[in-house]
């Protein structure tokens, strides 16, 4: 792809979006927030930026994230906050699809020989990184004015909650990089299995620690109690299984426009999930796992049916995530955020190193696995926002530190994981399905 052409096209669509945005005074609306404009602009711009990223050997995902960040509310403001708010449903649907695709690729039979490795690396990396992060955040709590006056128990609760949030991984990034590079092999499978299963543990862990923390901070909002946890996790799993059954029956009986049905179901999950406290990630993941491991149809059918729309889904999801990054808030807490990212990386590396021997993992793959666990996005962001909103006043300060640290991991993680996949020799050189012939490209 000609980079000059991509840059020129990017300039053209930016000029159009900018011109359209100049139509209304700030804060005014005529027929909506312009979410469709933001949606179209972000998809096109993200794909053009990803071409530039590819040329300098960066993952497309980094291009999508940077695109959202540059054109989002923090920098150029082509996409403003009301537009992003209205894209929340698109984001929810996209995360559901990403999780569904992950589930469809996780075959338990195939993973059985690696189960010990998956469990030991998950436990090892989470345990060590949580421990190191807890120590760091305890120290941070002693020096920040907003928490300096807390007693030991309160500081410990703050440290535990923050450590729990930063221990999260990013299934979306890992799946995104694997799909983008069409990687196949033990590192891809191991990384994907670990991030998916470990994130489930992180979500449960957060609900438990935040419930405990509420007893220490009586003023905290009560949005994350055990009742919500049960609905959130088991309700999502039940709905996901239901969707899996519907999809299996549809594929068996109808087998036409399966991709559209997938989107319809995920849209319903995202929309109904807001009132029923369902998590689109868990719903999608369960549906995918059901299809691949329980139903007679297998996940391959869904992967094929959604192939054409997977690229725009990834592009819009990561561009929106990038647009949600707040530059000013990050700069404010940058030293703490960078320190937390470094401690997290060290914890993941040390934890994996310990687990490799216990899990019987191949030395070469084991050395590269930590690079697949560094990324953070959806789950980490969601939990950080919960801290920010639920635990006032200290949540506002430490939530910003958490978000800042996630920004660092978000930008570095995909690059390192792509490097690891290339190093492991798992990046596929084959052309993508549906690729045009050379003579067609030059037509």
């Amino acid at each position, binding site marked *: 792809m000609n980079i000059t052409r991509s840059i020129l096209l990017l300039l*053209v669509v930016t000029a159009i979006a900018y011109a359209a945005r100049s139509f209304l005074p700030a804060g005014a609306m*005529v027929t909506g927030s312009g979410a469709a404009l933001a*949606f179209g602009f972000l*998809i096109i711009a993200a794909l053009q930026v990803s071409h530039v990223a590819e040329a300098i050997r960066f993952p497309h995902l980094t291009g999508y994230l940077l695109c959202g960040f540059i054109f989002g509310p923090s920098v150029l403001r082509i996409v403003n906050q009301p537009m992003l708010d209205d894209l929340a449903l698109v984001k929810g649907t996209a995360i559901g699809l990403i999780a569904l695709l992950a589930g469809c690729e996780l075959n338990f039979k195939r993973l059985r020989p690696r189960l010990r490795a998956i469990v030991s690396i998950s436990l090892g990396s989470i345990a060590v990184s949580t421990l190191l992060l807890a120590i760091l955040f305890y120290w941070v709590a002693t020096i920040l004015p907003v928490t300096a006056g807390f007693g030991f128990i309160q500081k410990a609760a703050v440290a535990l909650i923050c450590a729990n949030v930063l221990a999260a991984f990013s299934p979306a990034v890992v799946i995104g990089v694997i799909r983008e590079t069409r990687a196949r092999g033990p590192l891809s499978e191991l990384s994907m299995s670990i991030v998916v299963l470990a994130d489930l543990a992180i979500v449960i862990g957060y609900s438990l620690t935040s419930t405990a923390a509420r007893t220490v901070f009586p003023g905290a909002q009560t949005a994350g109690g055990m009742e919500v946890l049960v609905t959130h996790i088991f309700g999502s799993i039940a709905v996901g299984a239901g969707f899996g059954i519907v999809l299996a029956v549809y594929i068996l009986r109808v087998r036409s426009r399966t991709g559209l049905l997938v989107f319809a179901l995920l849209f319903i999950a995202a929309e109904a999930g807001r009132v*029923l406290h369902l998590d689109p990630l868990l719903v999608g993941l369960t549906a995918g796992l059901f299809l691949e491991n329980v139903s007679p149809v297998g996940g391959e059918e869904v992967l094929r049916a959604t192939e054409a729309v997977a*690229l725009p889904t990834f592009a819009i999801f990561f561009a929106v995530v990038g647009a949600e990054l707040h530059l000013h808030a990050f700069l404010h807490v940058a030293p703490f955020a960078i320190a937390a990212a470094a401690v997290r990386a060290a914890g993941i590396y040390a934890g994996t190193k310990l687990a490799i021997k216990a899990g019987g993992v191949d030395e070469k793959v084991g050395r590269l696995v930590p690079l697949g666990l560094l990324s953070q996005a959806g789950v980490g962001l969601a939990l950080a926002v919960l801290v920010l909103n639920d635990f006032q006043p200290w949540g506002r300060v430490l939530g910003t530190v958490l978000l800042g640290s996630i920004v660092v991991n978000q930008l570095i993680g995909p690059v390192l994981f792509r490097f690891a996949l290339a190093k492991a020799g798992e990046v596929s050189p084959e052309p993508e399905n549906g690729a045009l012939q050379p003579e067609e490209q030059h037509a």
Partner: protein
Amino acid sequence: MPAEQIARVVIALAAAVGLALVAAHPAVRRFEQRFGLSVLAASGFPLLILGYAFRNFGVVTEQTLADLRPAYEFGLGWIGLVVGMQLNVRRLDELPHSFTTTLALLTLPATVLVGLSSGLLLAIFGLTHGTGLLRDVLILSACAAVSAPANLRLLLRNAPSRSTQIVSAVTQIDQVAAFAILALVASMFRPQATVLWRLPRSGWFIVTAGVGFLLGVVIYLLLRNVRNRTEEVSLLIGGIALAAGTAGYLALSVPVVCALAGAVLANVPYRHKARLEATLGDFERPMYLLFLFLVGTTWRPLEWQGWALGVLFAVTRGYGKLVGARAAVRVAPADLPSARNLTLAVLPESAVAIVVIFSLATLDPEPVPGIAWGINAVIIGSVLTEVFVQAMQRREARAVGEETGRAVTHFV
């Protein structure tokens, strides 16, 4: 959320998914083709009614509709692009010379008659120039123009072979005529709002044309050097959303802007045009179904004025098509079937009519009652027309069966 409400939501969503499954089933499409039913009649009405029921049972809330706004704009854009792509000048050049006259005659009388009669009725209902009388008259006229093909195999069985080509083209290009009226109406009757661009009303017509043309060129440039189909679909989705979003943000008519972009795409030398049209066609039907569901959520069928207007709309439109068909057969007898069968062939109303009136209604943040009656009229008018066409087709099929001794089902 109370348990009763949760159960209601779950049951309703399950019903929606079930209906969507049925509507998407290939057997339903075969059924439509066999009986010459329009998308509206076969799958559209159930979804329309479902939308209405969901809104009244509290399943679809204001928040849900606000959430669906980007999807709705995108769907309008998709439909607009599909309509615009039918305006391929080279393909039109291949049609018989009588096509233009036939198109004008099958479109204009119905448009004028519906405009005059509905204008009179709306004036009786108390609408004035200040409350949108002229706008509603013009938009109902545009809705009268569009048609969907009936069972052409049955109705044109004894007609010259070119007649099928002409009638099919008429049912496609009359949509462009309706969009032209929509462009005019959307420019002349823009919503009043605090905006930074100050233009005369006629200036907005130029802006609409310019934005549509520019976005058509941009979509072409984006698609021109794609590496694979996945990228093509991504950029197509992005291009349509950008066009729809830009139009929506500027309070221009979304389907019109996207139709102009589609017309540009149809006439530039793009090597994978057939594949692009296939991709657009694949999603066209679901877009209509989503759209009709949304129309259902704002439908107000209990207002009697809409029913009166609907009956008048169906009758005058049908009469206008008959007058036009008679004139067309007189002008080009060698290319067309009998006036009766030609009328029946172009009588069913296309779902584009609902797109036209609903897209205008949503341009105005505070719509006046005339538009709500108009939506009702178009929906009721299309139901009445569909019932009439089906009855006439059954009669025609029975007559053929008696003539030839073949079963009625041979043609239906």
